[in-house]
């Protein structure tokens, strides 16, 4: 049997530490025996800020931890995009090749579940309405929008509303949210307006980084909005 690990990304571990439990629960329901990789970072925060040696140092630890596994699943599209598209190029020569081989084993959680041979086994039911935030990394870098929609479509009783401007960024962008707060807030405010127009009060996404940002705005502005990762939604829908 393939050795599989769940990578619990650094920021998810810090900001919403229960999310890994939800993801593990789903993977076990699929018949996998996942182990946990935590306390690691893909290096993206430093990478996006232009600090590549620092990004490489952090990313190396993640690749080391991932090395023994055949499959590494991460409930964060943004981290998967960093690992698969950018991290290997921070190394040189044979190390880059090795990094590329390990990086190729990383899968985004929703996409992994959607394509899992045992996905039919999951009994999923949740009465209610949610809106989908289609994250930029999921949509453009990983191309998993279809997987996410297909997976949500398996949940009995669930109405999924799509946002009118679903291809627009929520304004997070890692250090962008701190370095250019005025612009970031303008984008976040537009996203909240789009979510409000959908009528839904629960927003789900394959990327918690976007959700954390949107939630930070909603909380600060007194807007009722729950933000759930796909893992949390599936876990709550699991019968």
């Amino acid at each position: 049997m393939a050795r599989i690990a769940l990578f619990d990304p650094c920021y998810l571990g810090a900001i919403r530490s229960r999310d890994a439990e939800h993801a593990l629960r789903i993977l076990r329901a699929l018949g996998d025996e996942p182990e946990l990789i935590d306390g690691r970072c893909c290096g993206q925060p430093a990478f996006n800020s232009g600090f590549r040696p620092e990004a490489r140092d952090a990313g190396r630890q993640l690749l080391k931890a991932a090395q023994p596994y055949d499959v590494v699943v991460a409930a964060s599209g943004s981290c998967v995009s960093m690992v698969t598209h950018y991290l290997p190029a921070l190394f040189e020569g044979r190390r880059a090749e090795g990094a590329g081989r390990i990086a190729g084993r990383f899968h985004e959680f929703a996409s992994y579940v959607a394509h899992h041979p045992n996905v039919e086994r999951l009994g999923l039911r949740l009465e209610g309405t949610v809106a989908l935030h289609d994250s930029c990394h999921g949509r453009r870098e990983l191309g998993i929008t279809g997987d996410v929609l297909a997976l949500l479509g398996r949940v009995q009783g669930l109405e999924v509303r799509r946002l009118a401007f679903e291809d627009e960024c929520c304004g997070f962008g890692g250090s962008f949210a701190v370095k250019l707060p005025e612009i970031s807030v303008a984008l976040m405010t537009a996203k909240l307006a789009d979510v409000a127009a959908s009528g839904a009060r629960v927003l789900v996404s394959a990327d918690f980084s976007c959700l954390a940002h949107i939630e930070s705005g909603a909380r600060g502005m007194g807007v009722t909005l729950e933000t759930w990762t796909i893992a949390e939604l599936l876990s709550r829908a699991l019968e």
Partner: protein
Amino acid sequence: MSAYRERAAREIREQRPGATVTPIMRGLVADSARMLARGRPGAAERAAAARAHAVANLESLHAQLRESFGRQRVGYHRAATAEEAVATVRRLLGDARRVAKSKTMVGEEVGLTHALRAAGLDVLETDIGEYIVDVEGRGPSHITAPALHLDRSRIRTLLARTGADLPDDDPVRLSRYVRDVVGAYFQDCDAGITGANAVVASSGRVMVVENEGNVSLGVSHPRLHVAITGLEKVVADEAAALAILEVLAPSATAQPLTSFSHFLAGPMPGQERHVVFVDNGRSAIAADARYRDVLKCIRCGACMNGCPVYRAAGGLSYQSPYMGPIGAVISPLLWPDGRFADLPFASSLCGRCTEACPVGIPLHRMLLDLRAGAVERHEVAGRAERLAWRTWAIAFGGATRARAVSAAARIGLRSGGRLFRPNGTGDDPRTLPDPAPTRDPANLRPAAAAPPSQPVVQPESVPDSLAELFRVRAAALGVEVVEKCPARKGDRLLTAAAGVASTGSALLTGEQAARRPLLAAKRVVVELDPANLVRYPGDLEPYLGEGDALILTGASRTADIEKQIVRGIHGSEELVVVLRGEEAMPRLLSSEA
């Protein structure tokens, strides 16, 4: 605080560009996608290949072009720097005193208008948008729609400054007012300056596209025409130029083609034509594998149309002639002195620019490379930020340390999350998220019914016959398509060499393409033989001939004020195509033949 942030924050606070720009751009992006979808399948790949070939063969194409220009009697000039470019144009202008300038991004790049005025020349910006922003004095905010940041009432106030007495701010009235000022200037000027969208190495023809007719006037009225453009704008042949045309206007303005697509050959008798190719750092970019592809850019502006940062902060906050994602990439490359080092950070890296680019430039990846370069060269990030990342890297260099950081963050969020403000001032509404949020099942019930879903655009049914397709597409542009047209006084009667069904365009070649009588006519009537209809613009290649050529796509127009279309700027609003009945015509030539 970076200089860009300071400017962007001020723009947002004082001008609220997003309020004007976002709704316009949402509409434009959707229209562009529809326009591209009804073009040739694979058009973007063809255009990208044409540009990639040019960038990979710059010097050999220029050598070939030099010879072709010799045959066409067009002057070939090359300027290594901005200063040299300005000096060359001044020398070419000779004793010219009144200069009519149409839009050229390279002109903005080298500061041409300013330099010529400083030298005592009278320079008029003849593009309506450029005229307006010239009056305002803050520069263009978009590469194809310079006055995008201004609404109609602000434009009316600006024009009043120049003495215009306008009873209201109707965009039709405002556009026609500027048109008349420009038209009068053309009656008496010595030289026309334009840009160029492509220069064809094999034939020596200069491709320039425009909507208003001011380029048509600029290349035909004055005795001297000087085009100024980037070194990279050379392309191998007409097929390459046409491939670019197929994506340029759809991406830029959601038009099938612009109203006028000029293929300028040699000058008319008594006239002179020169092209100045500006290097200004482009050879260095071409030699750098990381950034070479940015020279594929066709300056359509699709990257900024879709960019959320551009929309929110506007084009002026970049303080560069090139704004939006392409500006954030190319500005620090063209001016490597560090003044634009913070622009690559003006992106959330959402990747929409890369997705929108019709010639496949990986813009957001280049932004990442530029960020790393700026950090390495110490152009951005002070000591505190450098220390912070070093510390961060040490923390995440070991799992135990990293877990401790996570735990500390959780405790910090619990106690201090609501107090934290990322920008350190009171006007950031965000608080850090709750690490253990409560869940209320009631929230799964929606607050409101689902909004009516947006109407799904049905794929357009395309008529079988090219003639029928031509009728539909031309009619959409306000062109009257008839089988017979009784002559009227003031008509300019022309015969088209070919027509393009998918865009409703007519190709005029040689004498038929003469611009002065075309623009002077009360009505333009073009006879088109349905046997000479092709499907896509790229199929026109066999009909282009050797000399002057002009593709007409609807009457002249502008959309420089709030993107509202006003038809009939320079030249007649009335364009009639006489397309004889198909039945009588043998269908020998079509795009498939």
